[in-house]
């Protein structure tokens, strides 16, 4: 599916500036995912159902205790729907990047011939996918949540802008994790086992299974600083305007959210460099 898109992009873009290549790859990624309409609708349905179940559990909990570590029922339910809305774009529970399969089959050899670095190519493609998922999975899921439950919907437009920036950074963190899991394949061949072990940690550490706020305060503060929290917990707290954010403000949260993808992508670039110099690619 993606090959046809990629190769025609490649042939038309020879000699083009990298920026134009990235834009073309981004657009192809967006278009590729827009073809799976039934699956998108099914995804929205599933996210909404899981959101409703989680929300009802938390509502029962907050009915017994109206306030826990600064969260009330509405805050918690809002975070549940932020998590369900972001589930598809950040892909914290998969699917893995197609890069994993291409490394296993050796098709990554083609990717390495492209006029832009491997990581940039996949980042552009995945951002295209995430943009589609945001528009057609996140927005409808959150809207359904807002219809079913009362959510925190700030009136200040600046807060929404900051929240969108935070969501975008969350998506880059999600990509960085998946890219690292894929690149491990240069050494391990099959990365499904990496997902099997690292996968379950994602939703827990991100604050998707339960808001991290419900953990003891000291534990929650440490977990907020880890990169997983930047995928759900920090964006949710930015939307809610909580002072439990690192640095005590929205900007502290955004700074942390920007620092993690920078660090993880640097690690990814370093690993890619080592892999392409040292590893013999699977022959076909």
């Amino acid at each position: 599916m993606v090959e046809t898109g990629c190769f025609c992009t490649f042939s038309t873009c020879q000699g083009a500036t990298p920026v134009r290549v990235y834009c073309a790859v981004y657009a192809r990624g967006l278009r590729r995912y827009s073809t799976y309409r039934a699956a998108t609708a099914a995804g929205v349905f599933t996210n909404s159902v899981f959101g409703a179940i989680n929300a009802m559990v938390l509502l029962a909990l907050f009915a017994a205790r109206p306030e826990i570590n600064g969260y009330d029922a509405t805050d918690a339910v809002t975070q549940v729907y932020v998590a369900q809305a972001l589930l598809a774009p950040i892909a914290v529970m998969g699917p893995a990047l197609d890069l994993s399969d291409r490394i296993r089959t050796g098709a990554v050899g083609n990717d390495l011939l492209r006029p832009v670095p491997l990581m940039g190519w996949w980042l552009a493609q995945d951002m295209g996918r995430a943009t589609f998922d945001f528009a057609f999975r996140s927005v409808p899921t959150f809207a359904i949540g807002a219809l079913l439950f009362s959510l925190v919907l700030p009136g200040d437009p600046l807060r929404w802008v900051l929240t969108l920036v935070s969501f975008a950074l969350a998506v880059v963190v999600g990509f960085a994790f998946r890219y690292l899991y894929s690149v491990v394949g240069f050494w391990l061949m099959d990365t499904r086992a990496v997902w099997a072990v690292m996968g379950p940690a994602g939703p827990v550490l991100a604050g998707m299974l339960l808001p991290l706020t419900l953990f003891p305060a000291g534990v929650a503060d440490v977990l907020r600083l880890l990169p997983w929290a930047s995928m759900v917990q920090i964006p949710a707290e930015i939307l809610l305007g909580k002072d439990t954010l690192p640095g005590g403000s929205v900007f502290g949260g955004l700074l942390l959210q920007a620092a993690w993808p920078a660090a993880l992508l640097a690690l990814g670039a370093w690993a890619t460099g080592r892999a392409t110099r040292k590893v013999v690619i699977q022959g076909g």
Partner: protein
Amino acid sequence: MADTLSPENPEAPEAPRTSNPLRAAGRALRTYVLLAWTWCRAVAQYPMALSLFTFGLALSSLAEMGAVVVVFGHAGTLAGFTVYEGLLVYALAALAFGTADFLMGSVDRLGDHIRTGSFDTMLVRPVPPLVQLATHQFSPRRLGKLVPALAALVFALVACDIDWTLGRVLMLPVLLVSGAAVCSSVWVLAGCLQFFVADAREAANSVTYGGQALTEYPIAIYGRGLVRSVTFVVPLAFVSWQPALYLLDRPDPTGLPEALRFLGPLVAVVLALAAALVWRFGLRHYRSTGS
């Protein structure tokens, strides 16, 4: 597809037929075990991968269990259930869904098999297609879900204040089996949806995995409307809620009759029959994609 079946015997995939349904069921069961064992031996060739997958599943089970403990830890009691009683509800649900996933989990891949055409291959083999589908890529890694659930159940049964009459001792295995049967039937029913909507896998997950998420907590917390619909429409209440009420000898806080808690086995049989009928209906309406 049709031309691979001989015209005088359109039921070829399910042949040879015997007049004795018990013997047919016995043969299906034997084939199931044989095929499952074949897949087990295949995955055992990669012991490292198998142990990592099993470990990963056990980790996510522990995380879910941890979430239940954290929620009950904050709330004290939910719907009158203490943390140990809540753990009992969780364990009953996780064990039933874990068993269903272990035995029938591969059924939700039906859409993939239809899309790639491998379902056609299953239809021409002399083994019931449901058995082939359920055993496809059968993996002992799913024990990673079952073992923690079983451990939680044993712990909760010891920690809860249960009046162990002879009736309860005898009923416990019956309730566990019927809970697993209800979940397996739900799994097959959700899988059958893909005969009609090939991309429905994720929507089916909202019934299968969603059902598990729903029944992990005492369902009275969801309010009367939902309790009634998961009692009388999709009978998930018989997976963990009614068995827990029976074991703990509690009146139903939502006011439904107490006799319901004894209906688990009956519900399981009816739902299994419904799943079998829907499966046959779907199979008869199946048209190959031709790929």
